[in-house]
Every structure is written in structure tokens, then in C-alpha cells.
């Protein structure tokens, strides 16, 4: 948080390095998406892992979350809990009879 001009000057290199890393990992994401890992869910997991790595760089370095006041951590943690719930809501649909019927007809057509 303390940002003396000298400290910031030191950070410039970090910013450029992070930018370059993000570009490299974008290329990696594109490349990996054309590789056949045997199942789409594996491709998906790998792709999302790379995206999670890239986003953590942006959050920690560009958004200075590596060194922030406690209050901000507190309410972002609160938000993340709700985000996590939203992303896992779909597990409840597996017992949904409508969805089950939908899947049957999909497989039936192929």
C-alpha cells in the first residue's frame, strides 16, 4: 500500500513481466484447446486452470490484492462465498426429472 516513487519504479518491471506472462498463457490456452485430451471435460478443466492462474496474476499484481487493507479482503471473501454457491447450484439439477428426460432424448437421437 505504501507507494513511494522508488518502490513504484521497482514495480514497473513486474507489471511488464506479468503482462508478458498473461500473453504467453493466452497463447497456451489457445494451443491446448486444439489438443485432444480424450474428453472435453479434461480440456475444460485444463483451460479453466490456466484462466484461474491468469486471473490470480491480475488480481494480485495489477489490482494490488497482494498488499491490501483487511477490510477489502473481508468483503471480497464474503462475495466469493456467494459466487462459489452460484457456480455449484447446477449440482441440484441432477435429480431434476425434467433434465433427466431431456438427457434421455438427447442420447436417443444420436
Amino acid at each position: 500500500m505504501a507507494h513511494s516513487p522508488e518502490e513504484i519504479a521497482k514495480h514497473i518491471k513486474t507489471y511488464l513481466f506479468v503482462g508478458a506472462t498473461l500473453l504467453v498463457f493466452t497463447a497456451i490456452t489457445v494451443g491446448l484447446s486444439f489438443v485432444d485430451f480424450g474428453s472435453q471435460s479434461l480440456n475444460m478443466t485444463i483451460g479453466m486452470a490456466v484462466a484461474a492462474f491468469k486471473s490470480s496474476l491480475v488480481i494480485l499484481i495489477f489490482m494490488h490484492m497482494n498488499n491490501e487493507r483487511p477490510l477489502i479482503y473481508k468483503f471480497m471473501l464474503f462475495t466469493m462465498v456467494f459466487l462459489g454457491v452460484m457456480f455449484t447450484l447446477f449440482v441440484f439439477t441432477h435429480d431434476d426429472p425434467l433434465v433427466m428426460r431431456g438427457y434421455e432424448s438427447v442420447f436417443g437421437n444420436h
Partner: protein
Amino acid sequence: MEIPYTVTARPDTGLWNAKIGIWLFLASEVMLFGGLFSSYIFLRLGADYHWPIHELNVTMGCFNTAVLIASSVTIVMAWAGVKMRKFAMYFWCLLATIVCSFIFLGVKFFEYKAKLEHYGVILKDGTILQGHLPGEGYKIKFNVDSITLSTKHDTSDPGYFMRYAVKPEAEHGGAHAEGHDAGPEHLEMSAVQFKTEKGETITLDKDWERLRQEAQAAKPKVESLKLTPVAPLALHAHPKKLVNYTPTSMAFIDSTQVAGKLVSDDMHLEVDLVDARATADADKSLAWSLLKDAAWKKQFDEHRAEELKKHEEHHPGTDPMKSDHFLREGLRWHIHGTTPDEHAAKHKEGVGILDGMPWVHHHYPAVTIPGKEIERWSNFTPSWNTYYAIYFCITGLHGAHVLAGALIMLYFLVFNSSWFKTDPEHLANRVETGGLFWHFVDLVWIFLFPLLYLL
């Protein structure tokens, strides 16, 4: 009133006010986009079709990702510029960020445009053809005996059909049947002469309003008027403006009825992709009878055999028909030329990453699809399938954020740059606040790009 704590920290929170404000705002933004990403998961799990992968232009998406990453670097450098009291660094980096955001939006515009000009046709056997509609697009061609107009509509423009009136093909020798045509000869519908049932000769622009009012005033009220064209008349109707049509009638969505004779409901399509994943037997797909030249089918077979070989090398003993990758690469077949030979040559030399760019205009084999073989057709709008619905929804909202970010930064650049001398710490905090928002926009794209373009 002066807003307090714009530079120094508020004692109770330990933060300057805008900082806590922007983080609270970002928290709600996380929930907004989180909800949409959650919808994406539901739509993808529930999709009853093959989820599109690599269907958007990967080169353009990749370029835009690089643009956003570059802008994330420049915005943090602009902030560092103020902190280090280097005006040129602040100014040029902020300007570069704004330029990047408009480049992003420009590329997005071309991506949207390409999708809206590209069509998908689901054939009766489940095969999907993709391509472009040449000429005036898909039109139902009809020779008119009579037109029955509703008298209810209070408009000087009676009927959607008006814009598609043409002279019948016989009138100009069917000159456009041979491909190189200037299109059908359009008529000014409002000036076309009709005979009413009473034998009066009228034109729509001069007489319609009077006829309509007379019909409304009559007792009992006359609900519709039947008009017979004086000279032969044809309509080229846009199918989306029709409720239905038969060999002898057309019903428009504004309740206009037309009697006469269906000339043609063939669709002309320049096919750039054949997707046989949902076809019961890819070898018997309707696509092969439409493409006519048997060499096309041969090319498809060779391509499929190649992909099958790759599958057996990498995943021996597994069922290729259960592999999304094989189905996508083997049964979803890109066409790269107007003739099978041209396709083969292009396929051999490899398709470049710039091939799908908006300024590259390729031509593809033209097929004629009889109306009865079409199950559904549309351009790639949100209504094509749930993938395009969520694609336009999330990227549209994301694009709105990019635009908002660009305008905020432009405001800082124009109106707050003078603070560099008078109140640099306040300016630094403004740029930091805008920067936090901008990084969030980048963050959303980091997930959007792989989810919508690649995986």
C-alpha cells in the same frame, strides 16, 4: 459539497473513500457476471445440441485478449506515472488504454457483424449447413392473383409485402436465373394498379386510406378488401414475414392474405460448413445430394478417415463416436473453396489464421435447398440456440463495461489531467479507481475467451 477523504484514509475504514466504493461496486459486479456465468453452466449442461467449440473467430478473440492485456499493463503504468510524477508516462499510458478499449470494441463489432451475416440451415435429417445467402437472401417467390388487405390497420403502408413486389420472371425473360443477375426488378408497390371488387382501378398510395375508411364506416363493417393486380405481379416474400404459405396462398404476419401460385421456395446458400454430427447416417446426409458433385463427398470421406486415424493413434480402443473431439473434427467439415479441387488444394496448404477475417471474401459452393428439406434456418442471432443467446448476452454486457471504462478514462484524461500539477495524489487515486474497474473487465474476459471461443 466537497467529498471528504479523497486522498487521505478515513480513520475508521483505513481507506480513502473511492477505494472502498470501487471495491464494493466490484463485489456487486462479481455477482452480476457470476450469475451469468452460472446461467452459462446451466445452459451448457442442458444443451440438446453439440455445444459450439471453435465456432467463433479464434484469431479475433485472441487478438482482443491481447489488446485487453496490453491495456491492463498501460493503465497500471499510467497510475505509476502519476505516482512517480512523470506526466508523459501518465498521459501516453492512459491514452493508450483508451485506444485499446476502442480497438476491442471495433473488433467486437466486426465479430458480431460476421455472425449476423452468417446463416445456419438445419435440414430435415438433422444435418446443419452453414453459409451465406447470396443476392437478396432467402425469399419465397410467388405470382399474385389477388391480395386481401385487412382494413383494420391504420397505416399508409398496407402490408409488409410491399417492399418485395417484383415483376414476374416471365416479364424480363428470367434473366436472373443464370447466377450473374442484377437481382429481380423491383416495383414501387404503392404505385402498382389494382382493381377492387367493385371494378374501380386504384393505387395504394392514392386510394388506400379512402377505401379503408369507407370500409370501416360501412354497415356492416367491411373487414378486408380484395384487390386484383391489373398487370401481372410477383412477390418475393421474406419468410420471416409470413405466418405460412401453401402452393396457392401466402399469409403475412400483418394478416394480409395473398392468393396465386407458388413459384419457388428454394433457398440458395453458399455452403462453408457441413455439420453431420446430428445426422443419423453421415454417409446418407441430404448435404451430399445438395452438393451434387460426388467429389465433395469423397473429400469429406478422406477428411473423416484422416481424423479417425488420428483418433485411433491417440486413443486406441475407444469409440470415436463418443469423442467430442473426433465428432467435431471429423463430422463437422469446413469447405475451403468453390470446387472440390480448390478445396483439396487449400486443405493441403493449410488454412491460415487470417482466413476467417471480415476483409477476406471467399466463395463457396452454391447449393439450392428446396423449402421442404429445411427444418429451421436463421442467421446466428441469440435465437439460433442457447449458446448464441448467452454469447450475445455476456459479451454484450462485457462490451458495455468496456465502453463505460473507456468513457471514464477519457473523462480523467480530458478533465483531470490538470490535477497532475495541483493535486497529483487525488489524480493518482482516480486513475487507480478507474484502473481497478478496468482490471475487472479484463478479468471477466480472461474467463469469457476460453469459455466461449475455445472450450
